[in-house]
């Protein structure tokens, strides 16, 4: 006898659709991935976007470095978010439940807008991700 337990699961298309809503006003790509760098979903309007798996892996590594640094050297302080200023674009990395959200756009995208969009998206995704128990 096999029991099938009904479990909540993420709808990939719906998740991609939600991420794509952030891709306006300078934001080119949005990624959602686990803290170990495993990509969950992404959306991009940039045809020359970097490999999303590479972006996820690198972003999670950067997050991990600063997170550990904060715990070790800033009195166990908790990392809230990261903003990166690169020659060709701006990047934001925000935590959402036990995952990470990464948004990036071109240099015309202000950090204030990038931060606001990231915060709004992470608040929206917090509840659904907590329900499915992403870890």
């Amino acid at each position: 006898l096999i029991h099938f337990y009904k479990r909540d699961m993420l709808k990939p298309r719906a998740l991609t659709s939600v991420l794509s809503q952030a891709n306006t006003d300078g934001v080119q790509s949005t990624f959602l991935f686990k803290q170990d760098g495993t990509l969950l979903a992404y959306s991009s309007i940039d045809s020359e976007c970097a490999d999303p798996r590479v972006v996820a892996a690198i972003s999670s590594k950067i997050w991990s470095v600063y997170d550990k640094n904060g715990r070790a050297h800033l009195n166990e302080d908790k990392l809230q978010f990261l903003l990166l200023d690169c020659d060709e674009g701006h990047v934001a990395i925000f935590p959402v439940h036990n995952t990470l959200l990464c948004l990036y756009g071109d240099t015309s995208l202000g950090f204030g807008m990038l931060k606001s969009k990231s915060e709004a998206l992470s608040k929206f995704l917090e509840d659904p991700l907590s329900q499915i128990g992403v870890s």
Partner: protein
Amino acid sequence: LDSLLQEISIMEELKQLLHDYMTSVPGVLGIILSDKEGIPIIRCKLDECPDSAMKTQFISAHCTAAEQANKLGMGTNETIMAVYKNFQVLHMNHAGVVISVIATADAVLNEVKSTAEKLKPLVQDISLAVIDPV
């Protein structure tokens, strides 16, 4: 001995200059100039700044992160701003020297970034001493 005394007085002047920049922005607790490997060149901090944030291990972590950030496909990484619950840390790479600014969580991040940018001309001069001539 004279040249040594001269060097010491120049360093003191530099520290005073950094101290002036620090105190001009509310919330800034410490400024460190270091090379790309995190070896400090000059440090200046207020009493409220955690001592461990001035150490090489803390600053050198940025080098790993910046190296990875260069591979994101967004060109060379210039600045990383890390906002924690109680502190904010900004690392800016300019002319081979890393400017690290530590501030409280209440400090305005844009002002902290501006402080680092104002140090660029000073850093440009210092970089001549630390850049690999090869």
